[in-house]
């Protein structure tokens, strides 16, 4: 939790800055709308966190989100009764994609960067091959309720975010989460403690796939079918996680911080827009802030020492 503090401070500052321009923002309705918008990215960041903390990458989530939305539209095709089966199928698809990513990474020893890059290509190709190039069919209202509707004034997506966020935090406190951290920190020590390293990593990839499926359900629900829905989300998610102080390479950082990183990123977009920074220059600002945030963290926490060469005082 202590490491989450800097990002929370940045987030607070951003939220205050937004509120100064748009007082409506801090009202419940305004803030809920902001959270609703942030929910998919926050969920994706939580999923990506599991993979990154285990020392891997998942570049496939963006195209997985697109694929899921397109699959849902084609299968539901406006038929209300198909909603729930298709929702279940989406979740299963997400888990399955994660499973494949994980198995290829661990068993075939292909770097996850490459595995998930390949998966990115395969998913985007396969799904449009199946639909003939553009999304077909339509989502049912029942499907869209998760992204559009709410329970009273509280959007479903915010509720889903809260539930998943809490689950992620609990998961990281549970045996799985603790062993996952240990694997990311020192894979060898974990293996020599009886941790099934492969299985733990595969599970992390599956969680990322699951997060992508949920994000797809929320994004598809929010705005309907689109072929661009997932574009670039993998980089946003990784950026969010890193912004939350989670180190690429594994073993460091907390899931609330990763999610806070995603909210911060979203708040940053909002703020840049509100202050009328040219939409284009927004990317420049974003790039500078990301590098600055990460380098600040790196300067505070020196790079992980490589145990390979041993350490001085262990030798005679």
């Amino acid at each position, binding site marked *: 939790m202590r490491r989450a503090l800097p990002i929370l401070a940045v987030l607070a500052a951003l939220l205050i800055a937004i509120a100064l*321009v748009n007082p409506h923002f801090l009202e419940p309705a305004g803030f809920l709308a*902001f959270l609703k918008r942030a929910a998919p990215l926050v969920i994706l960041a939580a999923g990506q966190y599991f993979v990154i903390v285990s020392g891997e990458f998942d570049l496939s989530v963006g195209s997985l989100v697109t694929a899921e939305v397109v699959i849902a539209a084609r299968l539901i095709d406006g038929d209300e009764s198909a909603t729930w089966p298709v929702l279940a199928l989406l979740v299963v698809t997400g888990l399955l994609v994660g499973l494949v990513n994980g198995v290829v990474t661990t068993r075939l020893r292909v770097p996850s960067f490459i595995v998930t890059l390949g998966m990115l290509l395969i998913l985007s190709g396969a799904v449009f091959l199946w639909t003939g190039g553009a*999304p*077909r069919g339509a989502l049912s209202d029942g499907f869209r309720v998760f992204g559009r509707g709410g329970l009273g004034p509280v959007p479903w997506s915010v509720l889903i975010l809260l539930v998943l966020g809490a689950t992620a935090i609990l998961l990281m406190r549970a045996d799985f989460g603790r062993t996952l951290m240990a694997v990311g920190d020192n894979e060898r020590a974990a293996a020599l403690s009886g941790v099934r390293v492969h299985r733990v990593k595969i599970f992390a990839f599956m969680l990322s796939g699951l997060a992508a499926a949920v994000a797809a359900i929320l994004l598809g629900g929010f*705005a309907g079918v689109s072929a661009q*829905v997932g574009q*670039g989300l993998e980089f*946003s998610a990784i950026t969010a996680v890193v912004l939350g102080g989670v180190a690429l390479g594994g073993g460091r950082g907390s899931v609330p911080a990763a999610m806070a990183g995603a909210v911060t*990123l979203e708040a940053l977009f*909002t703020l840049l827009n509100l202050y009328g920074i040219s939409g284009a220059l927004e990317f420049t600002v974003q790039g500078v802030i990301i590098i600055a945030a990460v380098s600040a963290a790196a300067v505070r926490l020196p790079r992980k020492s490589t145990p390979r060469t041993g350490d001085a005082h262990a030798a005679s």
Partner: protein
Amino acid sequence: MPRPKAAIAVLAALVIAGCTTDKPATTQSAAPATSSQDSGTGAQSEFFVQADFDAQLAMRSKTPQGPADKPWEQAIDPEMIDTSRYKKDGPYHLCFSNAAVDNPWRQVGWKTMQAEVGLHEEIGKFTALDAEGKDDKQISDIAELQAKECDALIVSPNTTATLTPAVTAACAKVPVIVFDRGVETDCPVTFIKPIGGYAFGADAAEFLTEKVPAGGKVLALRILPGVDVLETRWSAAKAVFDDSRLQVVGVEFTDGDAAKTKSIVSDYIQRHGTIDGVWMDAGATAVAAIEAFEDAGLPVPPINGEDQQDFLQKWKDAGLTAVAPTYPTYQWRTPIIAALRILRGEEVPGEWNLPQPKVTSENLQTYLKPDMPPLHYALCGCEDLPGFPEDWGGKKG
């Protein structure tokens, strides 16, 4: 780095317009740009050419020549060109360099073109290469197609300026037919396009000036800057709005992303309490814009979309005040027809301006086809083609 004045002007235009650009995440949008003009539309686009604008607006009221039931064979004010020097005997080998098949509009068009090819027995072979949206690949594709002994080459350019050298080179070898986007050379035998972007933009803007009470707040949504066919749509709309008493409260870029569109519209509703009209340069995200009003519990103001089924369906179901100017996908049939005419030595228009109808509440019922997929374009002119509707993703009604 020396920067031409034009670029500075563009830069100024962009800054003034307070544009946003593509990123996946949803955002709140920029505050309405401050502007020297009351209309809030910013500076006119560098793409705006007054003469073309006037010509296109004039074309809208002209009666096209050709069979009325086949708009893809009609032409407005054709200046016929002699093609006897290309005359040869069949069977023909037609080649097609396609910019991309990466959106529903191109998807529908590509299906339609393939079906059109199937109609003609004299086409012995049809070779098509997809450039996947890459200029560089399209340049190579065009070069490669020239080697395939094509009798005619059809090009749908990915971008205007950058494909010009490749097309110029091809003109020397085969008759070239360009459609959709143009190139900066006269060498193709014919350039096929609907009336154009000015007409599209003006149709929608005129509708809004008519339906939205004076002083009403209009939000203009654009996909992205810098694309010629889209720039003309906006510049025409801008001209119309500047002439009207409507107040354009914002010009925003959506990247064609539904989630972003919805967020932008929600933000504007939040900020202004209400929006009295929505202008869009393309219809793909019109439904998302409409939903933003619905989700806010507000009546949907006058809006324009395009001839996509989901919009037409929404229009009907919600009883909207709407209009749908079109950029008809039936133009994908015309290049095949043109190619065959050229190879038979028949005259074709040098600039083939196809009619560009708009969907209104009067003719909505004709274009609404509930059995077609939501992203299908109604003006595909494909209903009489073999394989319809299944090949276009529809269900047999």
